[in-house]
């Protein structure tokens, strides 16, 4: 009787042990295949969800008055005019840069092809922050590519599927990038950080030289550094507001505030390196 009770009570644990042993023995290639299959199986649902959100937004905009639409169109045309002016200045600067590179035999700055994509879904847990875009390997997206938007760095492509790609956001605790302060060429490290509810996305900057001074009244802008090899030099990341002594006493660390709209962006640009 006691033996029967013991067998009955230990049966669940025995089965669990067998399962865990079997799971450990399954080849990695099988696990990878199953993981990709499950992801690709549910991926079209997110495209449908994203299209449904866009349709909802379209019908909401249709209810706006003509006056509101005309005013919005007027504001956009002013913005377009300033962008066109910036573009023409950019072309002139680019030609000047190429001329100087040739004259002084400098190594050329890496160029990128830009592909725009729409975010279909965001997943912002405490341990990682990801966004899914509606383009994948079929559109030329590669793993590790830089992802930016109008205010600077968004993140990096973490994983690529056929028609989707997963971006690791700059606010993710798993995101690290080489950075620097504006006006200072010395490299530092930026890492994302979990933020509490209703607060702005944030991160931390490490390995800051001890002579750097900043405060909440005089913050410093953090930009990307070309030393990382992923992001072009000078792209805005965030603003460092408070400085703290580092644990090793050699360097300092700083709290960095990221743009408020990082978690609500709809359109992003993926930078694909061009080989020269």
């Amino acid at each position, binding site marked *: 009787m006691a033996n029967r009770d013991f067998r*009955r*009570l230990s*049966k*669940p*644990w025995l*089965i*669990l042990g067998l*399962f*865990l042993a079997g*799971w450990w023995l399954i080849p990695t290639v099988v*696990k*990878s295949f*199953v*993981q990709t299959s*499950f*992801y690709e*199986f*549910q991926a079209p*649902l997110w495209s449908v*969800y994203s299209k449904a959100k866009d349709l909802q937004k379209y019908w909401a905009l249709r209810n706006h008055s003509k006056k509101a639409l005309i005013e919005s169109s007027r504001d956009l045309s002013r913005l377009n005019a300033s962008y066109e002016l910036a573009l023409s200045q950019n072309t002139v600067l680019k030609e000047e840069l190429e001329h100087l590179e040739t004259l002084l035999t400098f190594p050329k700055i890496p160029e990128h092809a830009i592909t725009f994509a729409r975010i279909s*879904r*965001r*997943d*912002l*847990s*405490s*341990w*990682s922050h*990801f966004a899914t875009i509606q383009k994948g390997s079929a559109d030329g997206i590669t793993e590790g590519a830089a992802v930016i938007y109008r205010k600077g760095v968004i993140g990096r492509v973490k994983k690529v599927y056929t028609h989707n790609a*997963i971006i690791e956001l700059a606010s993710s*605790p*798993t995101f690290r990038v080489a950075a620097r302060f504006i006006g200072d060429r010395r490299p530092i490290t930026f890492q994302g*950080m*979990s*933020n*509490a*509810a*209703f*607060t702005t*996305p*944030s991160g931390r900057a490490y390995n800051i030289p001890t002579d750097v001074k900043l405060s909440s009244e005089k913050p410093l802008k953090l930009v990307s550094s070309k030393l990382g090899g992923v992001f072009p030099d000078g792209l805005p990341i965030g603003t460092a507001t408070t400085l703290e002594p580092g644990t090793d006493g050699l360097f300092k660390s700083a709290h960095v505030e990221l743009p408020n709209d990082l*978690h*609500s962006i709809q359109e992003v640009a993926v930078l694909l390196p061009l080989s020269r």
Partner: protein
Amino acid sequence: MPFDLRWIIILFGNCLLLFLVAMVNDALAPLSIYLYINGLIVLVPLIYLSLSKGLLCVLITGIYSDAILLLPFGTSPVIFAVVFTAYYWFRQEFKTHYSPGHNLLYAVSGNAFLLAITSITLNEGSLSHFSYWSSILLNFLFSQIVLSLITPWFISLQGSLVELASPKTTKYDANGQS
């Protein structure tokens, strides 16, 4: 012997719940709030399925959870299987019965355990950061409140679907017998 559809129906219900929760999390992203209610996913197979079919159901749900939540592959199946087995053993050892109060207690405690294990496993060096734990605590409190509200509804929904598919369905008692 007719094919038992119950575990497939419960699996479908769990996957649908995961998908809906992911949609809610997408909508809550601008507020930096995250909903985590995986405790409910482990509870429903415990009520309506045998040990083997329940374990199979939570395994496949765990694989789908890893795919939809973008977790390292294998995280959810292992954790779900451990919690399911622990609950199954507890039910056998202490001969507990199904009541709304017991179901809610199972769901809430299982959810807390799953969230704690996942947070510790996937911390990526953030264990010593106050911001990490404050974020988890706020998400935990929000998730438990939502879980308390939807647990009776979801269990009732799954029960109705299972009864439609198999009218002679009964719940498994503490000895694992129907």
